[in-house]
């Protein structure tokens, strides 16, 4: 540094260190961050709905006359990949109806399709640049991908996502979810094909048997069930295959 730079550097340090900083408002920052994230999800969902509506319009207008023999846009190789969706659980919390739905994205046939599918997922679902091996979507060549979404009243939020489990390993993977309003929790899980029943054991010793649901496009099974609040640092819900 030149003398004048050193001089300015010292003055900056003097000025910066001269201010008194209070304690970090951690709670306010976390609360603000959550509000930001929820706003972003709502905006994202609205954009997806708008895009879907536009796509629907284009598809309708591009559909061929009956018997013409021309291909529709939907059949074109560059049509945007889309998931299959199904509701797997419903209920009422704090007087508001809730649903957990699953989007299933098929396994990709080749690297090009994997990249396209990854891009479509990133646009349509909760974004995560690290998902499925990153923007090339390499993991999509080996397995399909699911997304679980929660809707309470009109509010939609992301619950979980992951690769669809392989058949025959008897695996049940779980995560906790919290309803947007109130202190109520639920357990979400995906069971490998071939699992016939699942039993969850809560922290207070009670047990529950959630209903397994299938979604078109995969043999994996999903469940979501209201649960007592987990203990802090409780880890993942203890739900195991019953047979």
């Amino acid at each position, binding site marked *: 540094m030149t003398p004048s730079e050193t001089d300015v550097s*010292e003055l*900056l340090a003097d000025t*910066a260190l*001269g201010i*008194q900083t209070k304690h970090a408002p*951690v709670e306010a*920052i976390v609360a603000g961050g959550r509000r930001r994230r929820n706003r972003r999800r709502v905006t994202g969902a609205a954009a997806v709905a708008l895009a879907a509506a536009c796509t629907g319009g284009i598809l309708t207008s591009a559909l061929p006359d009956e018997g013409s023999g021309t291909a529709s846009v939907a059949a074109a190789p560059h049509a945007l990949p889309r998931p299959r969706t199904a509701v797997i659980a419903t209920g009422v919390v704090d007087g508001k109806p809730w649903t957990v739905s699953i989007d299933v994205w098929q396994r990709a046939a080749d690297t090009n399709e994997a990249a396209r599918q990854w891009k479509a997922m990133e646009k349509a679902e909760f974004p995560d640049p690290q998902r499925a091996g990153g923007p090339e979507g390499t993991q999509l060549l080996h397995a399909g991908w699911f997304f679980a979404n929660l809707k309470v009243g009109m509010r939609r939020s992301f*619950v*979980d996502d*992951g690769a669809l489990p392989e058949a025959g390993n008897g695996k049940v993977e779980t995560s906790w979810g919290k309803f947007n309003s109130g202190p109520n929790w639920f357990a979400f899980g995906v069971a490998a094909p071939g699992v016939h029943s699942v039993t969850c054991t809560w922290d207070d010793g009670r047990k529950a048997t959630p209903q397994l649901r299938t979604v078109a496009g995969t043999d994996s099974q999903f469940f979501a069930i209201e649960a007592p609040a987990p203990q802090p640092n409780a880890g993942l819900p203890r739900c195991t295959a019953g047979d």
Partner: protein
Amino acid sequence: MRDTAGETAGAGRDSTDFQAFVVGRWSRLMRTAYLLTGDQYAAEDLVQSCLERAFVAWRRVSVAQDPDAYVRRIMINTHARRYRKGLKEYLSRSDEPALGRDLPQRGDDMAQAVERSDLVAALAQLPFRQREAVVLRYWEDLSETQTAAAMGCSVGTVKSNAARGITRLRSAVGLSRTSTDTTHLTHEGRTR
């Protein structure tokens, strides 16, 4: 199955990490923001806004090679966005009484406090890109490459902005003291 952010208990570890990050960086970010904005309240607002954005992207931030660089970039972008939106109140002007808030503390040298006010006023007069370059280079002690990454511009742009900023600051009234006055100061733990 991976943890999901925020609403699942599996995100507890992420949340704890984030809170530790906030507590550890708050003071430093506040000082940088103060130099950028020239006002303590605006600085708090900027840092809070920047950390809220970091919370949203925490999954990415926490696995980034240099989380501090990521957050610094968020802060610079947020600052630039606000400036471009015309939030002029964001900057203290030399004719505003806000500068008078920087009163000397107990045992503080009056001359030092006046100098701080002069510097803040002089910083506020700089174009915001020059101010960013000066603050990042000479307060944050970043290299030209790191500053360029934070500002999202080329090294050449950093060089020219920092040089012009330094020249203007040096020519500002009240910045003519010798560097020997403050050799006792520590720069967040580093003796200068």
